[in-house]
Each structure stands twice: as C-alpha cells, then as structure tokens.
C-alpha cells in the first residue's frame, strides 16, 4: 500500500518539478555559501598580509618616535567564521568580520560598517537558510493542500473510503510519504554541503539539521491541521498561502517595526558626537586637568608627570583616552539597548516558528546580533590590551627598534557560546504537537471521511 502510494506521488509531474526545483535552488544556495566562505577566508588571509606590510612600512617611516608610529599602526581582530556560517549568512554581510583599530580612541573606530551594495541587502542572499525557511514550506503546501479534498472533488474519495479499513491511517500515510521525501531532500542537500563546504559533523551541525527537520515537520503539521478541516482545495490553498504570508512576511515585519520603535537607538549618534568633542576640546584645556583624569583611570601611570613641553605623547594619548572615557556612558547604553533588542526579538520569536528557526540557525552559525555584540565586546578588550601594552613604552619613549614588531599578528575571536538545545527545539516541538493534536482531534470528530 505504502509503496503504491509513494509511486503515485512521485510519478506526478508536479512532484518531480517541485522536488527538482528545490534541489537545484538548494545547490545554488550552497554556491552562494561557498562564495561567501571564500571571500571570508581570503579577507582573513589578506588582513594578515596587510597587517605585516602595514606595520613594516610604518616602522620604516617613523623610526624615531614610538608615539607617532602608534598614531598610524592598526591592529586587526578577526571574528572567526565557522564553515557552517555559509549555510546561514545572517548578519555577517552587514557587519564586518574584521576590526582594524589603532590604539587611539576606540569609540570613533568601533562601529565602522562593511562596504556593501544596499540592493543586495534589501533583496537578500540566497543562502541555505532562505531556501529552508521560505521555499520548503511552499513546496510542502503545494504537496499537501489538496490531500483528501482533491479526491473528494473528483469523486474518488468514496472508493478510497470503502477500500481501506481505516481512512485516518490512509491520510497519515499520504503525509508520511511527503514528509519522508522532503526530509530526504534536506538530508541530501546538507550532506552535499558537508562535503562541499567542509562543515564538521559536530554538535552545531546536528543542531542545524534537527532544526531543519523540526521546521519541515512544523509546516506539515500546519497542513495536516488545515486538511483536517476538510474544506475544498481552493480554500486550503488560499488559507495555507495566507498563513505562509503571515509567518514569513507580515508577523516578522510587524514585530521588527515594534522592536525598532520600542528600543530606538539615538545613543549611536549621541555617542559619535560626544566622543569627538570629548577628545578635541582637550586641546584647548588645561593639560594637567586632562592628565589628572587619565591618572584617575590608570593610577599605574602616575609616575609619568606632564613634560614641560607644548606637545607630548603622554598628553596626546591621555586626550584620546578621554574621548572614550567621557563617552563610556553612551557606549554602555547603546550596548544595553542592542542587547535588549536582541533579547526581546528572541523572546517574541519563540511564538513565531519561522522567525524562531531563522534566529536559531543564525545563532548556531554565529551570524546573529548576539555574535556581533560579543565581537564588539571582544574588540574593546583587544583594544584595551594593545593600549596597556604600548602606553608605558610610549611614555618612556622607548626606541622603535627595541620592539619586535613582527610578533603582532592578526588575532582571532572565537565565539564559544553553546547552543541551547532545549531553547531552540522546544518552541518548534510544542507547535508541532499542538497542530498534530488538533488535526487528529478534527479528523476523529468529523465522521464525514
């Protein structure tokens, strides 16, 4: 029986075209991922070469004053890109994965954006997460909207009803075949991805795969529920597409607008204006006042008094430091706001499976806002480390040649946030069971089949 049903399903022209279309677009998404991965790797390699040349060149030009040299020299920190990132590019196209900073004020450098074509961002990538979140449901709907209703409309349902002992099991079998073929498709594409993009078979990958399966099951559960209402095919198609539209466009967009308006970030502009003034006004202020503030922040440098000169590097870097210190409040507020945004959207997303799946996939792939915030935090630490390393050398005016400059390699930040399996699976699981249960209940209570 099952074999016959399967043959019947797979022989249909629509099924073949649908599966083939999804398979091809799945491959295309892997190509997009591969190009993204190559670009990231190339950037990181280039950053390493660039930093080496850049430091060597500046050391050659400014061999006399270490203070002047460090005015120019940039150090890079890379946000490690996992291979699985190619499957869910997420926010990595907007936010740069490499930060290059001098030891001067950080707030003016930290938020520099990546170069990109806004048209690409608006219309979006075709990464695998897009194929999974947007297109799989469409095929699921196309495969299931007319189950039962089509047979009723063509009059063959009565034959089925009299021939099979339990029509409910018959319906389950119809779904079973369809679920199996789409999960097979998912498995094939991901298997190829593993080989093609060299994705390690670790916990992240299995979590990614499981969310994929749960997400597919979610849409089948929705279709099962709609079919259980036993309306006509046209009604099913309209209502399923409307649900798709709601979950894919309308609800996420509405929630996004809500979050943007609920947590506006004027701090960003406030911060930029403030850090500029905080640094620049010090040029026209009493030098000792600036230095006293600096000693307050770093008591260990009290042993370096203000030199009796119009200009000194100690004073200069103290001024730069004030740019950061006096805008620290705004910077902190901005970070808090962004965290609030991230938490609020994650919390709301639990109730919207499409959004939840997308956010979870990005989280696994380390391409979500959370990862970006951690990277910014790490940039702060990295910058502070470089600063504290060089400050005493600058204040002592150590010879440039005393320093082994080739040891300053590009550093890498690894986001080690663990994937919370329960947090990512549970919402999808609950929705699946809910729709399945209501669907079954409907079938049991309607004796019309």
């Amino acid at each position, binding site marked *: 029986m099952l074999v016959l049903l399967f043959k019947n399903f797979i022989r249909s022209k629509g099924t073949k075209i649908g599966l083939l279309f999804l398979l091809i677009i799945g491959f295309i998404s892997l190509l*997009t991922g591969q*190009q993204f991965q190559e*670009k990231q790797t190339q950037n990181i390699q*280039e*950053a390493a070469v*660039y930093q080496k040349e850049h430091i060597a*060149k500046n050391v050659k*030009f400014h061999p006399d004053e270490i203070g002047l040299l460090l005015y120019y020299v940039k150090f890079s920190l890379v946000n490690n890109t996992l291979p699985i990132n190619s499957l869910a590019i997420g*926010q990595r196209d*907007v936010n*740069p994965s490499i930060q290059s900073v001098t030891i001067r004020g950080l707030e003016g450098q930290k*938020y*520099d*954006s*990546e*170069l*990109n*074509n*806004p*048209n*690409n*961002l*608006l*219309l*979006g*990538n*075709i990464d695998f997460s897009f194929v999974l979140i*947007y297109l799989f449901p*469409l095929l699921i709907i196309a495969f299931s909207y007319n189950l039962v209703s089509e047979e009723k409309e063509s009059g063959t349902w009565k034959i089925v009803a009299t021939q099979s002992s339990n029509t409910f099991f018959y319906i389950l079998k119809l779904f079973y075949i369809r679920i199996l073929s789409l999960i097979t498709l998912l498995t094939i594409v991901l298997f190829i991805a593993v080989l093609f993009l060299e994705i390690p078979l670790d916990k992240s990958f299995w979590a990614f795969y499981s969310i994929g399966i749960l997400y597919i099951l979610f849409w089948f559960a929705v279709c099962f529920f709609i079919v259980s209402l036993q309306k006509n*095919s*046209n009604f099913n*198609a*309209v209502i399923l597409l409307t649900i798709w*539209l709601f979950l894919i*466009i*309308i609800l996420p*967009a*509405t*929630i*996004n*607008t809500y979050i*943007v*308006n609920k947590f506006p970030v*004027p701090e*960003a*502009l406030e911060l930029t204006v403030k850090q*500029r*003034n905080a640094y620049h006004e010090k*040029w*026209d202020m009493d030098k000792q006042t600036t230095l006293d503030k600096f000693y307050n922040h770093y008591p260990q440098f009290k042993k370096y008094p203000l030199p009796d000169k*119009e200009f000194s590097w100690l004073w200069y870097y103290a001024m730069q430091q004030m740019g950061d210190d006096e805008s620290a409040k705004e910077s902190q507020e901005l970070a808090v706001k*962004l965290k609030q*945004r*991230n938490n609020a*959207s994650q919390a709301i997303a639990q109730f919207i499976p*499409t*959004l939840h799946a*997308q956010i979870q996939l990005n989280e696994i792939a380390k391409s*979500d*806002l959370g990862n970006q915030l951690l990277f910014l935090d790490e940039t702060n630490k990295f910058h502070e480390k470089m600063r504290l390393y060089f400050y005493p050398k600058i204040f002592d005016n150590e010879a440039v040649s005393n320093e082994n400059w080739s040891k300053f390699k590009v550093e890498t930040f690894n986001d080690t946030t663990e994937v919370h399996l329960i947090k990512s699976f549970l919402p999808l699981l609950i929705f699946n069971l809910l729709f399945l249960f209501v669907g079954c209940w409907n079938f049991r209570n309607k004796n019309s089949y």
Partner: protein
Amino acid sequence: MSLYNEILIAKHFRNSVFKNSAVFIITLFIGVLLLYATFSGWENYNNQNQTSEKYQHESREDWLNNPDKNPHRMAHYGNFAFRKSTSLSVFEFGMEPFFGNAIFLEAHKQNSANFSEAGFSNSMLRFGEISIAMVLQILLPLLIFFLGFNAVAAERENGTLKLLLSQGISWKELLLGKFFGIASVTMLLYIPTIIVLILVWLFLQNFTISLDETIKMILFIGFHLIYLLFFCTIAVLISASSKTSKKALISLIGIWLIFTIILPRGTQALGAYIYEAPSKIQFNSDIEKDILKQGDSHNPNDVYYKAIKDSLLRVYKVDSVQKLPFNYSGFIMTEGEKISSKIYNKHLETLLQVYAKQNSFSRATSFVNPYIAMKNLSMALSNTDYDSYIDFQNQAEKYRYEMAQKMNALQIKYISNIKPKDTDKPLIINKNHWAEVGEFHYQPKGILEVLKNEIVSIFSIILWIFLLFLLIRIAAKNLKAI
C-alpha cells in the same frame, strides 16, 4: 459605445464577492495593516529626521564654538553628514534601513556611513518591513488574485459561462466586466488609502508643499494605480484561460510568488554572484597601495613630494621651506588631499560600477516583472533607492573635500612657516574663520533626475500597459466557452 453589459457584470461580480465573509475579514485586516504601516512609517520618519536634524544642528554649533586654533586641528575635528528622509519615505522605506545614517567627515580620510538600522537588528529585518508601499506592491496583488481567480473559471465550472455567452454577451464584454468588478473592489481599499496618504503627507509638511514633492506624490499614486490594475487584468485573463478555478488559483499564486519573491531575490543574487564586489579591507588596502605609488606626503624622503619642494624652492629663489612666503606644510597637505581623494574617487567609481553591474540583472527583469519596475520607481520617487544613497555619499564627500581644502588654504595663508619651539604656544587663527565653511545640507534628487534614472522602469510599465490591452484583445477573440 455603451458599457451597460460590462457594468452589469461588474456589479454582479462585486455583489458575489461581498457575499463571501472571508473577503470582509481580509479587507478589514489589510485596512488595519495599512493604518499600522502609516503609523509606524510616520513614527520612523519623525524619529529619523528629528535625531538627524538635532545632531546636525548640534554638531554645527560645536564646530562654530571651537576656540581659536590651528586650522589643521579643525580639519581633524571635522564635521558630520547626517542623512535626512524625504516625506514620501513615510510610505516607502526602500533601502533606508540598510543605509548608514551618519558619516564623519575629516581631513585625509573618507569614512564609511555608519549606524544603519540593519546593523542594529538581528535577522528579523531581512523578512521585510511593513510599509504602505509593501502593502500596495505585495499584499494587494495577492488579494486581487484571491478575489479574481474564479471570476471566469467558476462560471465555466458551473456551466453559467455558456449561458452568458449564448445570451449575446461577447467575450470582450465579459472580460472587461469582470475586470471592472475586481478593479472596483480593489479601489474600495485603494482610494481610502490614498486619501489617508495625502492627508498624512500634508500634515507632515504642515501644508507647505513644494512642486517637486507634489509631482513625486502624484506619480507615486498614479503608478501604483496602474500597477494594481495590471494585476486585476492578469487575474481576469488567467481565470478566463484556466479550465478550473483551482488551476487558475494555483497559476496566479505561482505568478505572484515568482514576481514578488523568487525573481527579485534570484536575479539580484545572480548579479552579486557573477560580479563579486571587494570587501572593505581589500578596497582600503588597494587605495593605500595606489596612494603610496603616487607618493607619501608623510614620508620626508618621498621622491614625488621632494620634487614639489625643489621646484617651490627654485621658483621662490629660497634655500629652505621655512623661508617660503606661505605655509609649506599646508601646501603639501593640499596636494596630498587632492591626490588621495582623486585616487579614492577612482576606486570608488570602480566599486560603484561593480554594484551597478550587480543591480543590472534585477533591473533588466523590469520588463518581465512589473513588481521590480514598480519597486524601483517608488523607491526612486521617495529617494530611498540605491542612486539616492550614492548621491548622499557623494554630496558628503564633496563637502568633506571642500572643508579639508578650506582648512588647508587657511593654514597656507595665515599660519607662519616657522615651526614653534617645543615650549612655545601653538600657532592659531581666529575662530571667526570657522563660519567660512558652510553647513552640510543634503539635497535629495529632483523629479527630473529621478525620472531620467528610472527611464527603464517607466518604459517597461508603458510596455506592460500595451501588452495587457493586446492580451485582452487576443483573449477576447480566441477564448472558448468550454
């Protein structure tokens, strides 16, 4: 020519639509959504413009309040360019969430436009946004398809089609009648929307509107009307040529998905795949390399700058730069700024050409996809399109260059050529000079330029009008009742 039969069919269709309670629910819902879109667009616009105006003003005050100092310090103090939105962007957000809102403008350095909404968002934004334009361009066409899929196909299924045709109604009358029917239902949503739109738009600008904005608004309304009527026509034609209403529905849903989701994303992704754009680090290091090739103004032994120095010494017949009658380092910086910005602009142009090539794929599909044509046109009218963004960056860069060179000129003219000793006070000029640099004002593109840029979209919309008229004629001749 009397349209009696057409109007009769249209009325009948409209009545049958309103018997369906689902239509009421959907229409009501879209109405609520439109209100929400207007409200959030309004709030967004106000937030964006108030913040941007506030800080533009504040940073200008800061600039003017700087005490007497060396002009080169001012060149590093710099200015900001904050982006302002136009009134139509309340209804069409376009690429706005992906634009950086602030550029720091200083000497020697072209900074990136930072703080885009997208950078502060998690992936949610990528699902799209609720704006009036989105409802008009994406949701209403789908509603039209849902309303119209059984316009003719259902009559065919019921057998009433044969009755109608045998009673002397021609195919042309039937098609036009159904078209009027769907269009009139659509207008019940569209016209109130437009009225609200115009009121909001007038309130936003306190009833003082410019001619330019008015023309843009009229075109915005007019093109959306044509766009929606397209979809009414497509719905009728597909419904008339499908055997069953189910087939009509499935075809229409397919067309909608291809137009609004698959083609736009697919073509853009193809463009981005074929023409790969450099990343920031690559772009910047390429520029740096080119500048070094030309000469490094910070390197005292650089050949290029040494040649300039030697020729200056010859012309003024002096033996050291300190004896020149003007500030030498100001002169060198003027030269350096000129060279570096020329090189930067050259690289930027190459980059923008890559972007333009990436966009050319989706742009070319305007001829097959009215959604893309409409989207591009409405983004251009509301100054939220790609060209407007580039235009903003260009205006900011031009301002930056002029500011830097103005400060260099002040240095050349007023700063002594003899370097102060370590313990001397620094060389400064009077703060009144700061006002000589004007305030940055972003000037959105005018209507003529917008239309010139969007000639492809307009042309393709005109082409679509002809095509649909043609299709109705062909269909009227060739359609069969069974």
